């Protein structure tokens, strides 16, 4: 759920960029350090980034009969870790703005915060937390992907509510309003994305163990 170009006031654009920047800089510095030590990892990271972008080009069905694309935050955070996802997600969002006119340059900071930071960190935290307390892998992956997607959507609604508070009920009322307007598509989509991510992770663990183990050192060190 991208916020479109020009839709946020200037102070909000700058504010969200300032909030997102430290996380992206932190992730970038870790990636740069890794690439200085292991230049061959560059291709792997680029392939991972391209994969995240292509993920968002796939149309998945929503229970309501409509169709939309997954955010990929849960799958990306699970495969590459949240720090790498923050950097790759920023590049992907920039590409989406310039190749799809989806999102924007002025709203990049806000979109990065909701889709490349909040969503992946929620998904990663949930996955680690649920597997830590002994939940099954399928349940942990489903919850991480679905709630990571929903977290993205809730953060975007909050960003819009902060920018456009409801004249009667204020920011909370506006947040409820934006959530209500987008819920019919976003909630079923989150469930679909959760189910899809479980299928993908199961298949990857069964048939692509080599690729997953190739990712581990890159993710750990980045």
């Amino acid at each position: 759920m991208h916020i479109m170009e020009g839709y946020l006031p200037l102070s909000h654009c700058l504010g969200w960029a300032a909030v997102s920047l430290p996380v992206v800089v932190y992730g970038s510095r870790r990636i740069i350090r890794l690439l200085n030590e292991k230049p061959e990892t560059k291709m792997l990271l680029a392939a991972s980034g391209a994969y995240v972008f292509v993920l968002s080009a796939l149309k998945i069905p929503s229970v309501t009969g409509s169709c939309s694309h997954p955010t990929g935050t849960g799958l990306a955070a699970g495969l590459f870790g949240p720090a790498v996802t923050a950097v790759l997600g920023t590049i992907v969002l920039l590409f989406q703005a310039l190749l799809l006119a989806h999102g924007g340059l002025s709203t990049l900071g806000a979109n990065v915060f909701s889709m490349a930071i909040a969503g992946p960190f929620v998904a990663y935290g949930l996955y680690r937390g649920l597997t830590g307390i002994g939940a099954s892998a399928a349940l942990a992956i489903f919850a991480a992907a679905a709630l990571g997607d929903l977290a993205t959507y809730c953060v975007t609604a909050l960003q819009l509510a902060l920018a456009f508070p409801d004249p009667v009920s204020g920011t909370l009322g506006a947040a409820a309003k934006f959530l209500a307007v987008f819920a019919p598509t976003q909630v079923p989509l989150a469930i679909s994305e959760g189910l899809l991510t479980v299928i993908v992770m199961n298949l990857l663990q069964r048939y692509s163990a080599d690729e997953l183990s190739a990712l581990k050192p890159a993710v750990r060190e980045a």
Partner: protein
Amino acid sequence: MRLLDRSAQTNRWRHLPTAEKLAATLAALAVCLLSRSPLTDVLVLVLMAGLTLFGARVRAADYLRAASLPLAFIATGTLAQMLVLDLSAGWPRLVLADASSVSTALFFLLRSTASISALLFLALTTPLTALIAWTERRGLNPHLADIALLMFRMIWLLLDCLERGEAALKNRLGHRSYRGILRSHGLLLAALLPRAFAHARRLESGLAARGYEGRLLFLSAETPASPLNLTAIGLGFAALFVIGFLA
């Protein structure tokens, strides 16, 4: 996606300096965000759409197709702004807001549309590779620039795989039901990651055979930006801002 890239690669202003096109886009965005005047937004919209359609000669059909998706999203957001959460009946319901809120929502609709015309100007006239090269020249870490550039090149290969795989699954009745679609997409995405890594490994081997030392260097035929043109762009948009302010 191919539409925007094709237009960026083939338009009449393809070889104009990236810095000048980027400066015009950023100046237009800044004017839209700073101005409180609808007239300024209308002027920016007309100017940027005019530059794209008549200056860079982007096809009108391509322009409209590229604009349709963001405009649909903005329309949804504007609708949300024009509605108010009403709790007076004892349960929450959405009702039309007062005239001032509706007018604010319409102002943001106009401002976003003008801003999108600025974004489309850049997206439809400037290849992404030129923008990445420009950011690298302006100080972006070369490793990050390389990752962005490689991502851009790999996206097209993976997109081809994705589309072929999706068509194959569709033809084999993989999209017959909701469950079937999810399973088909799961298979497709799971098959795509090994392919992405295989592409990466082949690229790595190919580069290693050609003396790769950790940096990818490309030649650029782009002419440098003219300080005179950059000043003219800045002054032009400043004038637009002042016109809107005075009107």
